[in-house]
C-alpha cells in the first residue's frame, strides 16, 4: 500500500498512527492503566472504612479518593475502554477500511490521554480534586474550595469531554456513511447499533457539561455568579446542568457493554440474538428516554410535586425497554448450545448483575423511597451493580472475546476463568452488603463512621470482597502480559463467530479487507459458513487483490501536537503567574497544528 514508507513498529509509529486498530490498542492500554489507578483509589477507601473511626488516611485524602475513583472509573476507564471497542470494531464490523476521519480519531485519543493526566496532576501537588465526581456547586466555588483542586477537575474534565465529543462525530459519520455493500441499517451487528445510539447521546449531552464547566470556571476565576447564591445565582442550576449530561452519560456507559454482550451471547449459544429488531428499538428508546429522567438525581432538592411525579414516571418507564433487553438475552441462550468460555462467563454475568442493579434502581425510581435511599450506600450498591457488574464485566468479556482478533493470540483461558470468579465473588461480597448498609442509614462520601451506628460488620465484609477483587485484577494484568508473548496462536475465527471481523486474519492487515465485502443478510458471515440446518458450506475462494494498490491514510504527528496545544491552553488556568502565557502558548500550538493538519497530504 502506498504509505510513503511509514514505519509499522516502534514508538514513532504509535505516536503518529491514524490506524483505527492501533488507536484502539492505545485507548485500551490507557484505560487499563487508569483502571489500575482507580482500583488503588478504591482499595484505599475500603481500607479506611474497614473499621469505625479509622485513621488510615485523612478526611482530605478520603474525599480526594472518592472524587477521583468515580471520575477515573467513569471518564478514564469505562468510556475509553468502550472507545477502544468502537475504534477496533466499527470499521471491521461494517466492512470498512478505517473510520471516516482517521486523523481526528488519533486526535481524540491524545486529547483523552492528556486530559486524563491533567485530571490527575493535582495528586502531584497535594491538590487532587475532592468535591465529588459531580462537583456540586457551591462546595466547588472559589470560596469553599480556594485551592486548584476544583480547577484540575473542571478543566481536566473539559479536555476529556472534548475527546469524546470529537470521536462521537467520527463514529456517527462512519456508521452512517461507510457501511459496505448490502449492509442496510437493520443488517448491522447489534454492537454497531448500540455504538450508534451512544454517539448520538454523546454529542447531545456533552455540550451541556461543557457549558456547565465553563460556567463554574468563570465563577471561580472571572467573578461571575452563576452558581453563587450570594449574588443571586442558583446552586440547583448546577445540578440541572450536570445531570442533564450526567444521566445520558450512564447510558453512554452501559450501551456499548450491552452491544458487546449481545455479540458474545449469540456466538457462544451458536444462535442469533433473539429479537434483533426489538433490541434495536429498545436501545433507541433507552437513548431517547435517557434525556427525560435526569432530575431523579435531584429528588431531595424540593422540586415540587409535578416535577417529582414526572421524573418518577419517566424513570419507571425507562425500565421497560431495559427489561425487554434482559428477556431477549435470556431467550438468546435458551435452546442454544452454550459454551462456557471466559468471554461468555462475563457476558452471562452481565445479564445477572445488571438485572440486580436494575431492580434496585426501580426501588429508588419511586421518589418516596428515594428520599430514604438518596446519598446512602443503597445507591452505591445500585450503581456498582450496573456499572461494575454490568459495564465492566461486559467490557472484560469483550477483551477476552476480541483479544485474539487484535493480537493473533488467545488470552489464557484457565487464568481467565480464575480471574473471572475472583472478580465475580469479590464484587458481590463487596456490594451486596451495601444494600443493607443503605437500609441501615449509612451515608455516602463519609471518610469514616462512628462506632455506635452498627455498620461495622458489613463494612468489614465489603472490604474483604474488595481485596479479593484486587487479586483478580492483578491476575488479569498477569494474564495480559503473559498471553501477549506466550498465548496460544489464534486463527481468524477461533470462536466460530457471526460477524465480519472474523472473516479476516488475526491480527488483520492494515487495510482490513482486501476486497470490500458484500452482505445479503444479518450475520452474513455466519450465513456463508452454515445453511439453515447447520451443514457447513464450502468456504468461498480467497479473493485476489493487490495489497500495494490499496491506499491507506498516512500517519501524522499533527493530532498529538494539536492535543498538546489544547491541553496547554487548559492547563494555563492552574498556573498563577505564568498561566496566561502558558495558555497563549497552547493557542499558538493549536494554530500551528491546525494549519499543518489542513495542508498535510492525506
Amino acid at each position, binding site marked *: 500500500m502506498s504509505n510513503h514508507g511509514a514505519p509499522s513498529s516502534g514508538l514513532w509509529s504509535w505516536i503518529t498512527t491514524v490506524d483505527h486498530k492501533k488507536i484502539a490498542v492505545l485507548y485500551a492500554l490507557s484505560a487499563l492503566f487508569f483502571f489500575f489507578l482507580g482500583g488503588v483509589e478504591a482499595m484505599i477507601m475500603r481500607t479506611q472504612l474497614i473499621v469505625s473511626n479509622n485513621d488510615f488516611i485523612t478526611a482530605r485524602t478520603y474525599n480526594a479518593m472518592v472524587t477521583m475513583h468515580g471520575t477515573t472509573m467513569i471518564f478514564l476507564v469505562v468510556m475509553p475502554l468502550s472507545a477502544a471497542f468502537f475504534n477496533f470494531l466499527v470499521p471491521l464490523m461494517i466492512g470498512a477500511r478505517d473510520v471516516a476521519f482517521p486523523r481526528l480519531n488519533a486526535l481524540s485519543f491524545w486529547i483523552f490521554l492528556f486530559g486524563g493526566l491533567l485530571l490527575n496532576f493535582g495528586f502531584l501537588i497535594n491538590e487532587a480534586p475532592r468535591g465529588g465526581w459531580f462537583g456540586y456547586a*457551591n462546595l466547588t466555588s472559589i470560596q469553599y474550595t480556594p485551592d486548584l483542586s476544583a480547577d484540575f477537575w473542571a478543566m481536566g474534565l473539559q479536555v476529556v469531554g472534548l475527546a469524546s465529543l470529537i470521536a462521537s462525530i467520527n463514529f456517527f459519520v462512519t456508521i452512517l456513511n461507510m457501511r459496505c455493500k448490502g449492509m442496510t441499517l437493520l443488517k448491522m451487528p447489534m454492537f454497531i447499533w448500540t455504538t450508534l445510539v451512544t454517539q448520538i447521546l454523546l454529542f447531545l449531552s456533552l455540550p451541556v457539561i461543557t457549558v456547565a464547566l465553563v460556567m463554574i470556571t468563570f465563577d471561580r476565576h472571572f467573578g461571575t455568579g452563576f452558581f453563587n447564591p450570594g449574588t443571586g445565582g442558583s446552586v440547583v442550576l448546577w445540578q440541572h446542568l450536570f445531570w442533564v449530561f450526567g444521566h445520558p452519560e450512564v447510558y453512554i456507559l452501559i450501551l456499548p457493554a450491552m452491544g458487546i454482550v449481545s455479540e458474545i451471547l449469540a456466538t457462544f449459544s451458536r444462535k442469533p440474538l433473539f429479537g434483533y429488531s426489538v433490541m434495536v428499538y429498545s436501545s433507541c428508546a433507552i437513548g431517547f428516554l435517557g434525556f427525560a429522567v435526569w432530575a431523579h438525581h435531584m429528588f431531595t432538592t424540593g422540586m415540587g410535586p409535578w416535577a417529582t411525579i414526572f421524573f418518577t414516571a419517566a424513570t419507571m418507564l425507562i425500565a421497560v425497554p431495559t427489561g425487554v433487553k434482559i428477556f431477549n438475552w*435470556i431467550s438468546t441462550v435458551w435452546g442454544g448450545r452454550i459454551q462456557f468460555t471466559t468471554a461468555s462467563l462475563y457476558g452471562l454475568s452481565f445479564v445477572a448483575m445488571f438485572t440486580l442493579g436494575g431492580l434496585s434502581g426501580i426501588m429508588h425510581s419511586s421518589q418516596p423511597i428515594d428520599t430514604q435511599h438518596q446519598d446512602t450506600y443503597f445507591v452505591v450498591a445500585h450503581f456498582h451493580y450496573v456499572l461494575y457488574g454490568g459495564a465492566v464485566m461486559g467490557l472484560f468479556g469483550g477483551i477476552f472475546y476480541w483479544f485474539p482478533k487484535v493480537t493473533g493470540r488467545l488470552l489464557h483461558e484457565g487464568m481467565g476463568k480464575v480471574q473471572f470468579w475472583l472478580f465475580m465473588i469479590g464484587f458481590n461480597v463487596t456490594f*451486596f452488603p451495601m444494600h443493607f448498609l443503605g437500609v441501615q442509614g449509612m451515608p455516602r462520601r*463519609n471518610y469514616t463512621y462512628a462506632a455506635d451506628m452498627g455498620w461495622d460488620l458489613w463494612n468489614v465484609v465489603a472490604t474483604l470482597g474488595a481485596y479479593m477483587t484486587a487479586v483478580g485484577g492483578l491476575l488479569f494484568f498477569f494474564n495480559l502480559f503473559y498471553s501477549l508473548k506466550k498465548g496460544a496462536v489464534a486463527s481468524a475465527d477461533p470462536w466460530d463467530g457471526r460477524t465480519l471481523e472474523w472473516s479476516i486474519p488475526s491480527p488483520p492487515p492494515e487495510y482490513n479487507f482486501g476486497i470490500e465485502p458484500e452482505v445479503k443478510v444479518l450475520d452474513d458471515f455466519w450465513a456463508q459458513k452454515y445453511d439453515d440446518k447447520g451443514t457447513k458450506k464450502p468456504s468461498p475462494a480467497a479473493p485476489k487483490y493487490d495489497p500495494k494498490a490499496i491506499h491507506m491514510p498516512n500517519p501524522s504527528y499533527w493530532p498529538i501536537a494539536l492535543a498538546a496545544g489544547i491541553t496547554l491552553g487548559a492547563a494555563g488556568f492552574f498556573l498563577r503567574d505564568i498561566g496566561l502565557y502558558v495558555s497563549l502558548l497552547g493557542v499558538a500550538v493549536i494554530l500551528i497544528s491546525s494549519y499543518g493538519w489542513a495542508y498535510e497530504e492525506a
Partner: protein
Amino acid sequence: MVSLVRWFKVLFALPFLLGLTACFEKLPMTTVHVVTDWGHDINRVYLITTIITSIVFVAVAVPFCYALWRFREKPGDNRFPEQIKGNHKLEILWTLIPVVLLIFIFLPSLEVIMKRSEAPPKESLVIEAIGHQWWWEFRYPDLNIVTANEMVVPEDTPILVKLKSADVIHSFWIPRWGGKMDNLPGITNQLFYTTPKLVNPEGDYYQGHCVELCGLSHARMRYEAKVVSKERFDRWTEVAMQPPVVATTLEKKGSDLFMGKTCFTCHAIAGTNAQGLIGPDLTNFGNRRTLAAGTLPNDRAGLHHWLRDSVDSPPDYQKVKPGSLMVFAPNFELTEDDIKALTAYLQHSTAKTY
C-alpha cells in the same frame, strides 16, 4: 446434579436471609423502624416495591439458571441449535407485563408524593434547621430560642422544619422519621412531621446525619432530635435561653477563660458577653448528650479530647473535625487546668433543669 441445585438454593437463600437480619436490626439510623406517618407511608410503598421486584427477580433468575444448565454444551455435543430469530407474542407479553407491574409501584408512590405536597398544619411548631460546615443550628423563631446539634421537640406535635444553609449544600435526614431534604444556600426548603409519641419518659433520641457532601467533615455532622413530653418541652422553652449559673470557683475561672480567651468571638451564650455567631450556640450546652455535632460524648473525656485536638492539631488536619474553623495560633496555650475550668463552666453552668 443434586448438589448443584443445593448450591443454588444456598446462593439465593443466603443473601435473602442476611437481608432480613440487616433490615430488622434496630440501629440508630435504620430506615425500617419508622415512627412517623410519613415513615410508614414510605415503607408501605417500599414493601409493595420489594415484593414486585422479588417476583421479577425470580421470573428472571429461574429461566436463566435453568437455561444455563439445560442448554450447556456437553462433551461430544455437536447439536446445531435452531436459529430462532424472535417471537412477537413474547415481546408484547414481556413489554406489557412490566408496564402493569410498574403501575402498581407508581400509583402508591403518586399518593405519597401528593400527600407530602399538601400544606402543613397551620398550628405546626416552626423550627429552622440551618446547616453549617459542620454543625446544625436550630432556631425556634416563635419562641426566640437558638440552639445547636440537639433539636428538642414535644411529642405527638406537628412540626415544620425550615431548611436553610449558611454556606454549602447540606441535607437534613432523620431516617426513623422519614426521608431527607436538602439544605440549599439561598433557598428555604421544608419538611413537616408529626413527632412520635414518647416511649421513654426521660426522653427519646432519634439520630440524624447530614447527607450531602459538604466538605472535609461531612462524616462528622450528626445531630439528634430529642422528643420530650409536652409539659417538659414547655418547661424547656422557659429555661432554654436563661444565662448560665456560675456556682463554684472553678466554674468562675471557666467563665473568665471563655470570655477572656477567644471563645466568645465565635460562640454565643445567652446573658453573657459571648455573642459570636460563627460557631454553635452554647447556651444550653450542658444538657446536650454529645458535642461536635454528635462526634464525641459530652462528658469530661469528650470535651477534653475536643479542646486538646482543636488547639494542638494544624488546621485542616484535626483528628476530630478535619477542617474545623475552631483554629488557634501555633503559640496559643490551653493548659490542663484551663480545660478543667472550661469543662466545669460549659457542662455545669450552662445546664438547666427542666
